[in-house]
């Protein structure tokens, strides 16, 4: 007899006149890993809120361990023993691993801590999952993956039987993801259930027992292991996206590239060892960090840190990132990290033009001219709005157009598709395409490939701080992982590969 861990039966939740979830039904079995793929982000935040806390429902029933915990007629109260692990760490930075796992859990009543006892208590958990993290290490010293493991152990020790993992793939490398899947499978066999939220079904179907698609605050379909999962063509709201991707795919073939816009020669910095790279003007290069060791160092270099040794060149000349407008960086989650609420829209848009106009802050005429020129693209009304009132799409427009106005030779984008829903992802592509059409080289720094592959001309995979593999477009089908948009390359190049194999056999 199967045991249900969670059942949400036709849940409708409204708050301040807005409907967060509507007629939402979901079942998670004990020991199951359920993949949840939100086609749009509508209702996702509400779902996580309701899992954590029993808020009054407009309609519906919520069961945990087959017990009714929330009912629209008799609202439940309090928190549930359900843990949610997201990109932002919930660990106390100034405490050790053992303190975070044991001391901070609900129900810990001791007044005096005994580090040796806590250390001994941690050992069996670490042995179970085959990971070694020092109990005395402070959270600040841990890698991203280690922090994640500590959060997971914290949830297990706290007695959470359902653990939600949100977009883990965006901050954990492919290698670490494999280890993570083994850990999740281990705990699933012990009866703990997982809700694995990811933007791509290719990632979910690699190891989830079932996957569920969520759209507009409802689960629309479940897929079991072995069921035919759709390519994106069947996903509602994505048909246009898929069509657009295919069109861009053909266009990229026609446009040629020329000249090296940017070069890195024999770089030693942090974890980077003898790292060399070359990017042509108008080229889209994706750098995938396989063990999550290099991205941070690359990013710190681009922010202005000086490298230990090696050269960074733009058009053959040495460049100092952070001080040279020929090199631009678009950070992760740019709508949160690169928009300044204490500045007007026009100031946000134009301040990167200071290398072209010395007194840009006072140059009203220049700003007015920019508004006139880009009004059709950005919308005539945005220039007078407060930046915090902009829609997500308008915010992306603002950041990317700022970089376009800067007119760099190369743009580095750090995980550009992270947390972006489908409609925004296609818009981000259009924005990146504008750079490429202008001859600006684009380098995407990614932990997982996600949507980057469809735009890429080349893929560089980095491990242990140096380049391990380079793939040209026609070699993408040889990639060892099932990744979004790979089917496009398989469609295009599989036939040619087959012909080459047959020729080789004949020889």
């Amino acid at each position, binding site marked *: *007899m*199967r*045991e*249900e861990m969670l059942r949400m*039966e*036709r849940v*409708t939740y409204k708050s301040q006149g807005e409907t967060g979830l*509507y*007629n939402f*039904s979901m*079942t998670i079995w004990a020991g199951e890993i359920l993949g949840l793929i939100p086609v749009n982000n509508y209702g996702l935040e509400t779902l996580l809120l309701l899992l954590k806390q029993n808020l009054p429902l407009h*309609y519906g*029933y919520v069961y945990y361990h*087959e017990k*009714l915990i929330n009912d629209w007629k008799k609202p439940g109260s309090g928190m549930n023993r359900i843990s949610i692990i997201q990109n932002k760490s919930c660990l106390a930075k100034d405490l050790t691993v053992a303190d975070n796992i044991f001391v901070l859990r609900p129900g810990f009543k001791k007044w005096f801590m005994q580090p040796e006892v806590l250390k001994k208590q941690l050992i069996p958990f670490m042995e179970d999952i085959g990971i070694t993290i020092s109990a005395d290490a402070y959270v600040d010293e841990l890698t991203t993956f280690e922090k994640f493991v500590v959060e997971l152990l914290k949830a297990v020790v706290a007695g959470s039987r359902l653990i939600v993992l949100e977009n883990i793939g965006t901050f954990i490398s492919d290698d670490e993801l494999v280890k993570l899947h083994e850990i999740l499978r281990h705990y699933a066999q012990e009866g703990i259930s997982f809700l694995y939220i990811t933007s791509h079904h290719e990632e979910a179907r690699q190891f989830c027992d079932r996957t569920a*698609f969520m*759209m*507009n605050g*409802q*689960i*629309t*379909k*479940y897929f079991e292991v072995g069921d*035919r999962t*759709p390519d994106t063509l*069947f*996903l*509602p709201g994505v048909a246009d996206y898929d069509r657009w991707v295919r069109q861009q795919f053909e266009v990229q073939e026609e446009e040629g590239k020329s000249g090296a816009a940017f070069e890195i020669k024999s770089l030693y910095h942090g974890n980077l060892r003898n790292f060399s790279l070359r990017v042509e003007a108008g080229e889209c290069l994706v750098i995938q960090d396989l063990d999550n060791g290099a991205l941070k160092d690359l990013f710190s270099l681009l922010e202005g840190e000086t490298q230990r040794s090696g050269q960074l060149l733009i058009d053959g000349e040495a460049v100092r990132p952070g001080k040279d407008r020929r090199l631009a960086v678009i950070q992760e989650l740019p709508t949160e990290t690169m928009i300044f609420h204490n500045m007007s829209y026009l100031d946000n848009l134009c301040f990167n033009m200071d290398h072209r106009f010395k007194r840009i802050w006072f140059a009203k005429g220049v700003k007015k001219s920019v508004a006139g020129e880009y009004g059709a693209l950005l919308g005539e009304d945005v220039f007078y709005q407060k930046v915090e009132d902009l829609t997500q799409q308008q915010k992306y427009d603002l950041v990317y157009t700022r970089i376009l106005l800067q007119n760099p030779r190369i743009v580095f984008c750090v995980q550009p598709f992270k947390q972006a829903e489908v409609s925004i992802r296609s818009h981000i592509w259009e924005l990146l395409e504008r750079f490429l059409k202008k001859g600006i080289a684009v380098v995407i720094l990614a932990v997982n490939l996600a949507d980057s592959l469809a735009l890429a001309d080349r893929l560089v995979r980095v491990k242990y701080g140096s380049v391990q593999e380079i793939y040209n477009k026609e070699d993408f089908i040889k990639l060892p992982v099932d990744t979004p948009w790979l089917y496009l390359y398989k469609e295009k190049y599989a036939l040619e590969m087959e012909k080459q194999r047959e020729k080789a056999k004949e020889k």
Partner: protein
Amino acid sequence: MLIAGLTSVSDMTEALASFFRYTISKVENLVSVEEELQNCETYFKIQQYRFGERLQLTIECDNEEREEIYCCRLPKLTMQPILENSIIHGTECKVGTGHLKIHLERTGSRLLIRISDDGVGIDAKTLADMNERLEKSAQAMSSQESETKGGIALVNVNNRIHLLFGEEYGLHVFSMPGIGTDVEITLPAITSDREIPNKEALS
């Protein structure tokens, strides 16, 4: 007749008779899952006369729990109308073979039946409307809107479940265009009519 796999008219007649006998007799009673499944298989045989090999049905149930599940009680004509919907609205419009599946599962307190097809599926707007009608089942019965596709059968079954067992049980539809549709029926796992919360609804 050969296409359908029925070797004679008498087989078809017998199936029809069996189906009608089941349908018209004592509708107000609960039946066992086994009886309801037999009726579904009878109905399926009748449909196979029309579709032949284009239609396939699988019934899935854990072998160890089969006996327990088959003894559970549910309202008569719970599954067959949904199976009929799957054939008419899902599989009939599809090119190629249609695969239907009835999956049965049991927890400590619930019986879960999922009827799936790999037919044409339902678009997002229609799906949302359908589930909304199921949620507001009592109002939907008097609504003019219930004449749209798949509306009446599902609402009828849903209402009967609500009346007998309460609103926490019922139907929910999951679907994706081009992939197929799943109708999930949630019932209490009862083995005796005495366990029905609202016995008056039977009469």
